[in-house]
C-alpha cells in the first residue's frame, strides 16, 4: 500500500516531466517556420551553440539540453513546421514514456512484498532489452533500425523504467509509513 506522501510525489514528478514533454513539443511548434537549422551532432558535446543561443527563452534552454543530451540527427528526429525536435525520435519516446510510466505505476500490483523485487526487475529488463538490442544491433552494423521502431523502443524504456522506479519509491514509502493508531 502506498503512503499518503506518494500520490503527492507521483503527481509532482508527473507534472514536471509532462511540462518538459510539452516544452519539447512546443518548441518546434511555436517557433517560426524553418527557424531551426540542421542540428546533427554528437551527444555530450555542445555543437550548435551559436544557433541555439539566438533562440528566445525557454526554447533556447530546451534546445541546449537536447544538444548536450542527444545526437539530434535530423533524419532521426521528428519535425513540425520544418523545425526539428530538440531530441531524436528514440529520446522523444523515452521522455514521452516517463510521465506515462509514472501515472501507470499506481496500477502495478503485487500479490506479496516478496515477489515485488523479482517482478520489478523483470519489468526493468523487459524495458531495456528492446532498446539495447535495437541500439547495439544498429551500432555494430547488423541492421538499420527504422524510426517507428526507435520510437516504440524508447517509449517502452522510458515508460516501464520510470514505472519501476516509482513503484520502488511506493514500496519504500509503504514500509516506512507509521501504522495508524486505533
Amino acid at each position, binding site marked *: 500500500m502506498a503512503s499518503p506522501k506518494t500520490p503527492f510525489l507521483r503527481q509532482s514528478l508527473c507534472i514536471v516531466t509532462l511540462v518538459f514533454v510539452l516544452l519539447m513539443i512546443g518548441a518546434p511548434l511555436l517557433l517560426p517556420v524553418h527557424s531551426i537549422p540542421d542540428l546533427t551532432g554528437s551527444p555530450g558535446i555542445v555543437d550548435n551553440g551559436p544557433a541555439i543561443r539566438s533562440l528566445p527563452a525557454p526554447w533556447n534552454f530546451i534546445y541546449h539540453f537536447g544538444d548536450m543530451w542527444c545526437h539530434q540527427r535530423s533524419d532521426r528526429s521528428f519535425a513540425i513546421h520544418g523545425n526539428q525536435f530538440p531530441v531524436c525520435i528514440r529520446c522523444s519516446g523515452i521522455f514521452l514514456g516517463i510521465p506515462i510510466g509514472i501515472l501507470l505505476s499506481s496500477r502495478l500490483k503485487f500479490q506479496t512484498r516478496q515477489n515485488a523485487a523479482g517482478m520489478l526487475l523483470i519489468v526493468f529488463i523487459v524495458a531495456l532489452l528492446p532498446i539495447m538490442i535495437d541500439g547495439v544491433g544498429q551500432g555494430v552494423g547488423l541492421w538499420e533500425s527504422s524510426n517507428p521502431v526507435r520510437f516504440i523502443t524508447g517509449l517502452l524504456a522510458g515508460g516501464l523504467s520510470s514505472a519501476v522506479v516509482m513503484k520502488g519509491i511506493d514500496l519504500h*514509502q509503504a514500509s516506512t509509513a507509521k501504522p495508524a493508531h486505533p
Partner: protein
Amino acid sequence: MTGDATGAFIISLIGGILMLVSGAMSVFLGSICGATFAACGATGAGTTIMLISSLGLVASIPVLIGSFFISRSDMDSIRKGSMLTLIFGIIGLIFGVWGMMFLMIIGSILALVGGYMGYTLQPTA
C-alpha cells in the same frame, strides 16, 4: 527485524545497472576518442577522456555490490550497503557531470536515492 528494503534495493540496483551501461558505452566510445586524440598528439586529452570513462565504470561496481547488501535482511548489512551506494553514487555523479554522461548522472542520482532510502530505513519490532 528490519523494515522492508525492497524499494531501496530496486532503486539502487537500477542506478547501478544504468551506471554500468553508461560506463561501458563511455569506455568503448572514450577509448576510440582518446586514441584518436592521442594519435593527433594531444596525449593529455586522450588520457583524460579514457580516465573519466573508466572511473565512471569502476564506480558502478561498488554501487551494484551495495545494492545486494541492501537486499539482505539484517540492518547492519543494509547500512553498509547504503553507505557504499551513497559514496560511489557521489563519485559516479562527479564523473558523470565532468564527462557530460547523462545516463551516468541519472544512474548516480538513482543510486543516491536508493542509498538514502536504505540508510534511513528504520528497524521494526
